[in-house]
């Protein structure tokens, strides 16, 4: 899977979780600016586990990893 494909998959998932149109989810915006709270964030982590088979809840994720959907896609890419 390429970073671009991971990014597109994330955008679809996040749009569904936050009830937004995928076109409204910018890959360059920080998650907290997408109106995502603790629960929404956990839903994204569950989506990542189900889609990419990666459990991130107990991992040492930093703000930088979640700075944007793009940076998260890069992080996932390194773990796949």
């Amino acid at each position: 899977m390429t970073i671009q494909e991971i990014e597109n998959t994330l955008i679809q998932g996040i749009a569904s979780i936050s009830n937004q149109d995928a076109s409204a989810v910018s890959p360059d915006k920080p998650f907290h600016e997408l109106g995502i709270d603790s629960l929404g964030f956990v839903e994204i982590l569950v989506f990542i586990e189900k889609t990419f088979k990666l459990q991130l809840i107990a991992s040492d994720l930093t703000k930088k990893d979640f700075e944007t959907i793009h940076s998260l896609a890069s992080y996932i890419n390194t773990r796949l």
Partner: protein
Amino acid sequence: MLLSKQKRYLSGSDWVINTLDHLMKATTGVGNLSQVVLLLDAPLDESEVRNRLNAFVKQFLVLQGQVSRDLKLAPYWKIPARPGRDISLTVLNAEGLLSRESILALFEKSANTPFHDDKEHLAFHLFKDAERCLLAMAFDHRIFDARGAELFLNLFQQNMNDGSPAASGDITFTSSAALTQWSKKFLAGRTVNRRIIALSKSSPRALPIPRDGAASQRYHLLSFDQQETAHIYDRAYTEAGYLMESPYLLSVILQCVHELFATKQEDGSSYLIPVTTDLRPNKEPLQEMFFNYVSYLFYQVPAGEVADRKGLIALLKQQMYDQVKSGFPKDLAEASLLTRIAPLPLLGKLLHLPMKGKMATFAFSHLGKSSYQQPLFMGKKVLELFHMPRVPVPPGLGFFSNYYNGRLNLVISYLDGLLRDDEVQMLDRRIREGFGLGRPS
């Protein structure tokens, strides 16, 4: 699917809230009422408030509805065809600057005042002195959840900004009796039952409900300025992780409550905390302003695992993750649809069965970023915004936080007599210390 201006079927979440309303009326004389409070930097004119709010509120006939039930058994909200009474607005003009204690006493009074009848679901309270004022919108939780109440005030102010007449409240509600897909509901019910049975294996610690005291609600407000709030969020990030404010806040509060229990001889080996979650679909903003879109996560923490903050945060995060992964909040909302057939008095009794009357240790909700997105209200600057909900009895104790304009507010809501004044002060002090703050707000 029903499209109607006069009828809106109640969801499972709505019916849970109706059950709590029934229970609270039975135990305290006042229903499931909350208040959203705005602190403004200058006094508002009473007649302008009355006229503007009255004109706005009267457009929304849904606000004067009541619960009814049709032959299909499904309960619904019956919406009148014409507006009824004017809004209820109480005004208090104080001579000197209102102190924090006097403000809380005023809101305790308004929180303990029932609505006039079953068709009244909103009341406003205006407290002002020469320099500032507080406006509280007391609302029946059956018509708004906390976010819905903020959205309603936000819409009011948007209309003020636009200078346009009040938004049309002539809403055609889309709803369903939801009397189909029974297997889906029963499967959800099975999941919920299993979870509740698992939770009930350990008796939760709970403060004893005062037997002969007045059944009134008391409040304590912890207000954090922007600098303190930034510090708290920074610690939440460091200790719990990115966007993990909710489990972080809960961990600090739970440690403080644990300390409180250490001075008491209460039974129970664990703490049980129901936490409100928002399942709002964000598709029909006007419709979704009304009624309830909440579900719950349940955290169960063995008393022996509370002291270690790092371990506690990891446990809370894992429980949150597991419940979201298993779809528990959505299953609970789905399974609640089944409960609508039961009359409220029966459902109220059933709710008490699994935990032998101890429904939880305390309730918790972190509303996060406010849906009231305006810097002003009727031309005055909004300095603070916070919520003051009543809490079901039992447990009679709740912690409710929200974030507005870079500031965190935390309200402790408790049944009169459940906590002594020195215990409330201890909670205030220890919560602040838990956040790494020394001086009082």
